[in-house]
């Protein structure tokens, strides 16, 4: 037997946390969603939850699917099945479908994501559908305002109207009963009970308070609730009507009525807000003060987690929940809007100080004690005998004895005329008062003041704690933590290596460890003279800590400017010992029910937190006092539903159907998913994983999307799992299987071809560029003075060359590993071996060229040391000689006694290498390369205009045909080469590099050429000569 209530009952089989009837409505966590958050319109007319757990919201401007975070709009703009955007009624049926009644646009059915319209053509009696119900036979009933009722069953609509005996055509409300009966409410004719084709009509004559019916609701207990348009509400049990129209409900128009799973009846009125009927008594109202919720309530729904949804006219979508925290603000009787200091008394009561007075909470109500006029109380302390001490902003210390008699201490008693932030009686019995102008000690009714000049770190004292060893720990502003022991002060501020100068709270645990709450530096653990700092990096909610209290389970509870959090003391100790990296904070903020004002804690007074003897923890905030009972914090046991909503392939959405094909060449795929838990939607955490790609789950703490780029073709499954805010996982989650199709060219052979092509193209581009540069260089040479021109060219070309070289290095890296991998993995295939080997060789050759380019572009200063040129020449030639082949002969001649030169050996090797290569290239048919090493002769000194110091000459001669005068002029220009492009050799940089290296060594290079060959003379200062030059 199913009806609407039963459907809801199925959905709500295990409400995680129903609404606590002992709370005032204002103490629920209340949250609103308006068009700013994506709600289509401010007037919410209908609410339903489908089997996939989505919440559906009907408005005057379309339908929205809501997952707790995002609204997705459906309406005339998205689907032709909608002929009207004005939604009047919603029904989630037992088959997972959704029925949408519209004004003037007929009925819309949604099943498996597809919308279908039911209008006059399909046999519907009217176009304005105001009410919907499902009877236990699976039939859908739609009530119209025009002409009766339609029954939709097995794809066909049949009509029941006044012609069939209904007392009126204006069907306003429907409710299905467990025996298959249907209750029909009319806007002008009372109620009809319809069962197996027979009617029974109820009117005022039967005890119905009004014939204007607005809403019907049948409870699980079999009570029919009737909302009327002009006479409040009534119930009917076994044919007997009982009206409830006392108080504000008298004569009220009620549009929505719903019983929750805790048996609270929720009543939505027109003009008088939301009412709750608990235990047979109408208890509480919510009025317009909760804007944007308005006083016109149109829709009420309890979801499967036990939270209550309310839609109002011209207002918002509003949710009521049991928050984990309970706020006491002015609405709950707190005499002042914000609280400062709190103090737990010995009978589970709480003293609350505020900016306007002092009050006492006895567990049910606040009692104001107006002892302080307009002077805000900042600090509280109660002695064992019940004497209460309150320190005020203006510096008055008010003592209230157990019998209520009060006396006031002021500057007349030696107190500074300054705000009193802290009051403390130490274990030895001395009363201490912390002020903004020093620390005062009470002695026989008089105060003596200790100040900064007495050794107190700073005069602003925020908190005082006395330990069992007789030490007093004092929190100061500006000088950190101060200890007072045996008449001496010790100060720990940033100057002493303490993490903070601003201390807000001090807590000592049963092991004697001090936990210090700081302004901006988190919590500091102080033990055995050692500090250990914990901040948001270690997992705290915030770095400014206003208060620290401990629960019996060993958790530290702290208030901050962003809400309250608890953290395990044992976990902090683990971190302190280096055995853990991070702790996890349990946060009590908006999701716990804190209002915006209550998120902002109060700090800098003693003390903004307290634990009452009943175990409740209390925190003062800008929005009142917040209470949390750690032993009763409810955990939401219901895992979230998980839905993969969309896959976006290169900016276009593809349908989420398992086995979807993703077209070849798709570069990026983004998945959007959601988790549904309305209790704390933002607290849901996700993990996703792409099978065949990701090796492990990827944490996506709150982001509801994942993107992949450049996936190789293949079959994939994208999986998402999620946990609710209390860490309860839905490990099955949702999965989307798809195949990414390959292009023909995504085969290994095509790729290989492409690589070869790539390398060839890069190569050609490089050659062309170099030639262009060379042409430019040549043109400019003619104009500019040669050495200046060279310097400038070298610089600008250097930049360009370096840029190109770097790009090539990166580009090469995308080919080289593949070639090597191919060679390694396909060693049996000779073609692959040859192809991959060639690619590899080409890459390595290109790499050598880019290194040469980089060398040219980014010279480094020579690291000079005495070098035996002869030894170096022999060594270098031995290395390169084998690559010259048999056509060449290399001769080295050295005059005995030639002194060492002062040079960079590595750079000299480059000089030798390049000159030798140049000599070889000058003799394509082979020949003799002669290297000579000696001191410059007298005549050479004269010929080349050398200084009178000793110069070492290294000559490199070839036996080729010499060079033209033009070539000789340009031989050192960068990129000048006589070798043809097609030879694939050289960059024209070799001799440029030689020239620059020699310049940097303070040497000279001179070219001599004739028909029998060329000789390069390289002149270096001797080591002795270079040293002498440096000294002078």
């Amino acid at each position, binding site marked *: 037997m199913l009806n609407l209530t039963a459907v809801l009952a199925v959905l709500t089989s295990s409400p995680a946390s129903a609404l606590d009837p002992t709370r005032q409505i204002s103490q629920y966590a209340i949250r609103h969603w308006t068009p700013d958050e994506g709600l289509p319109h401010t007037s919410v007319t209908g609410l339903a939850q489908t089997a996939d757990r989505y919440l559906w919201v009907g408005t005057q401007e379309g339908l929205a699917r809501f997952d707790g975070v995002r609204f997705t709009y459906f309406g005339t703009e998205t689907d032709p099945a909608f002929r009207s955007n004005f939604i009047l009624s919603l029904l989630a049926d037992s088959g997972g479908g959704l029925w949408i009644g519209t004004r003037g646009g007929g009925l819309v059915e949604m099943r498996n994501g597809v919308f279908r319209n039911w209008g006059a053509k399909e046999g519907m009696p009217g176009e304005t559908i105001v009410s919907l119900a499902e009877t236990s036979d699976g039939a859908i009933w739609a009530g119209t305002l025009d002409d009766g009722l339609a029954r939709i069953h097995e794809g066909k609509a049949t009509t029941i109207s006044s012609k069939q005996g209904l007392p009126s055509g204006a069907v306003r409300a429907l409710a299905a009963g467990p025996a298959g009966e249907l209750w029909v409410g009319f806007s002008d004719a009372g109620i009809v009970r319809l069962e197996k084709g027979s009617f029974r009509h109820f009117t005022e004559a039967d005890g119905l308070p009004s014939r204007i019916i607005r809403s019907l609701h049948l409870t699980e207990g079999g009570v029919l609730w009737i909302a009327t348009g002009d006479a409040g509400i009534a119930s009917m049990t076994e044919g007997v009507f009982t009206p409830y129209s006392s108080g504000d409900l008298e004569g009220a128009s009620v549009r929505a009525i719903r019983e929750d799973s805790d048996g609270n009846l929720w009543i939505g009125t027109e003009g008088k807000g939301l009412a709750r009927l608990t235990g047979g008594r109408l208890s509480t109202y919510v009025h317009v003060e909760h804007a944007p919720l308005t006083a016109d309530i149109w829709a009420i729904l309890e979801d499967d987690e036990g939270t209550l949804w309310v839609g109002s006219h011209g207002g918002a979508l509003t949710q009521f929940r049991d928050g984990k925290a309970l706020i006491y603000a002015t609405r709950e009787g707190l005499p002042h809007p914000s609280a400062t200091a709190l103090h737990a008394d010995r009978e589970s009561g709480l003293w609350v100080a505020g900016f306007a007075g002092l009050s006492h909470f006895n567990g049910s109500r606040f009692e104001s004690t107006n002892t302080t006029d307009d002077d805000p109380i900042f600090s509280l302390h109660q002695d064992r005998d019940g004497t209460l001490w309150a320190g005020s902003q203006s510096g008055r210390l008010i003592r209230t004895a157990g019998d209520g008699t009060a006396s006031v201490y002021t500057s007349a008693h030696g107190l500074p005329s300054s705000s009193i932030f802290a009051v403390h009686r130490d274990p030895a019995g001395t009363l201490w008062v912390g002020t903004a102008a020093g620390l005062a000690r009470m002695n026989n009714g008089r105060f003596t003041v200790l100040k900064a000049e007495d050794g107190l770190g700073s005069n602003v004292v925020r908190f005082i704690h006395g330990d069992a060893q007789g030490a007093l720990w004092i929190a100061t502003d500006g000088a950190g933590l101060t200890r007072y022991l045996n008449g001496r002060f010790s100060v720990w501020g940033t100057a002493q290596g303490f993490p903070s100068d601003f201390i807000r709270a001090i807590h000592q645990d049963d092991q004697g460890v001090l936990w210090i709450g700081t302004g901006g530096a988190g919590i500091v653990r102080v033990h055995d003279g050692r500090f250990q700092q914990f901040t948001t990096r270690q997992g705290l909610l915030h770095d400014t800590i206003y208060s620290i209290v401990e629960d019996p389970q060993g958790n530290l509870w702290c208030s901050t400017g962003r809400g309250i959090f608890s953290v395990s003391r044992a976990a902090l100790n683990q971190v302190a010992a280096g055995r853990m990296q991070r702790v996890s904070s349990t946060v009590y903020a908006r999701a716990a029910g804190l209002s915006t004002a209550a998120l902002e804690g109060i700090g800098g007074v003693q003390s903004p937190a307290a634990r009452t003897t009943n175990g409740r923890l209390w925190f003062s905030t800008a929005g009142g006092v917040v209470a949390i009972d750690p032993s009763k914090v409810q955990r939401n046991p219901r895992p979230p539903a998980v839905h993969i909503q969309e896959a976006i392939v290169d900016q276009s959405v593809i349908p989420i159907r398992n086995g979807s094909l993703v077209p070849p060449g798709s570069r990026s795929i983004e998945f959007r998913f959601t988790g549904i838990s309305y209790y704390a939607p933002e607290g849901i955490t996700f993990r996703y994983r792409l099978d065949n790609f990701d090796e492990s789950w990827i944490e996506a703490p709150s982001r509801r999307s994942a993107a992949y780029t450049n996936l190789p073709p293949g079959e994939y499954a994208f999986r998402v799992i999620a946990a609710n805010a209390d860490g309860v996982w839905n490990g099955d989650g949702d999965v989307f299987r798809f195949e990414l199709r390959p292009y023909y060219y995504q085969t290994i052979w095509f790729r290989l071809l492409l690589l070869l092509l790539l390398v060839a193209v890069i190569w050609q581009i490089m050659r062309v560029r170099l030639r262009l540069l060379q042409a430019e260089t040549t043109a400019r040479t003619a104009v500019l003075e040669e050495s200046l021109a060279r310097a400038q060219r070298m610089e600008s070309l250097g930049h360009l060359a370096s840029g190109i070289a770097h790009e090539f290095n990166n580009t090469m*890296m*995308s080919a080289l590993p593949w070639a090597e991998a191919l060679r390694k993995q396909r060693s049996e295939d000779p073609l692959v071996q040859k192809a991959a080997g060639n690619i590899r060789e080409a890459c390595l050759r290109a790499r050598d060229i880019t290194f040469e380019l980089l060398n040219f572009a980014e010279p480094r200063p020579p690291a000079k040391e005495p070098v035996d040129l002869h030894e170096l020449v022999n060594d270098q030639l031995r290395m390169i000689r084998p690559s010259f082949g048999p056509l060449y002969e290399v001769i080295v001649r050295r005059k005995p006694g030639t002194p060492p030169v002062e040079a960079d050996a590595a750079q000299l090797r480059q000089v030798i290498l390049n000159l030798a290569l140049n000599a070889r290239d000058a003799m394509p048919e082979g020949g003799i390369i002669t290297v000579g090493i000696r001191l410059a002769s007298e005549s050479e000194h004269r010929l080349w205009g050398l200084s009178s110091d000793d110069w070492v000459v290294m000559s490199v001669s070839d036996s080729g045909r010499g060079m033209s005068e033009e070539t000789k002029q340009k031989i050192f220009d960068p990129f000048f080469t006589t070798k043809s492009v097609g030879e694939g050799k050289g960059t024209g940089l070799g001799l440029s590099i030689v020239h620059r290296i020699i310049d940097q060594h303070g040497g000279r290079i001179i070219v001599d050429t004739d028909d029998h060959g060329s000789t390069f003379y390289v002149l270096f200062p001797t080591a002795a000569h270079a040293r002498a030059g440096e000294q002078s």
Partner: protein
Amino acid sequence: MNGSSTDGDFTGRRILVVDDEAPVAEGIAMLLEIEGASVTIVGSAAEALSRVDSGFVPELFIIDLGLPGITGDQLHVLLRERLPDTPIVVSSGYGDRERIEPLLRDPQTRFLQKPYEMSALYQIVGELLRSAEL
């Protein structure tokens, strides 16, 4: 043909490659996977950090210096804050010494100039993984 395999055998070692050029990253990954390593590729420093912060701790990082957004040298600093001892190979097609040299003061960091050969990669990765075991 497999002469350099003695340097390799990274069976089961977890390596994270951070390179914004997919063919480069995939090529390096392939070379390492041939030797049995389990390689994860990410295209940005942010992605690398989010993996690490969510509990994925590789045994070695190979990071490109020229990453978009958070650059490779910044990533190196951020990784060191989290994982003081995990070996990091920094590679670059650029030879800018002033960016690389400070990184190399870290004893568990090496530099590879792009383009590098398989043998160089195997040698450096092998050395670092072995020294991390000590």
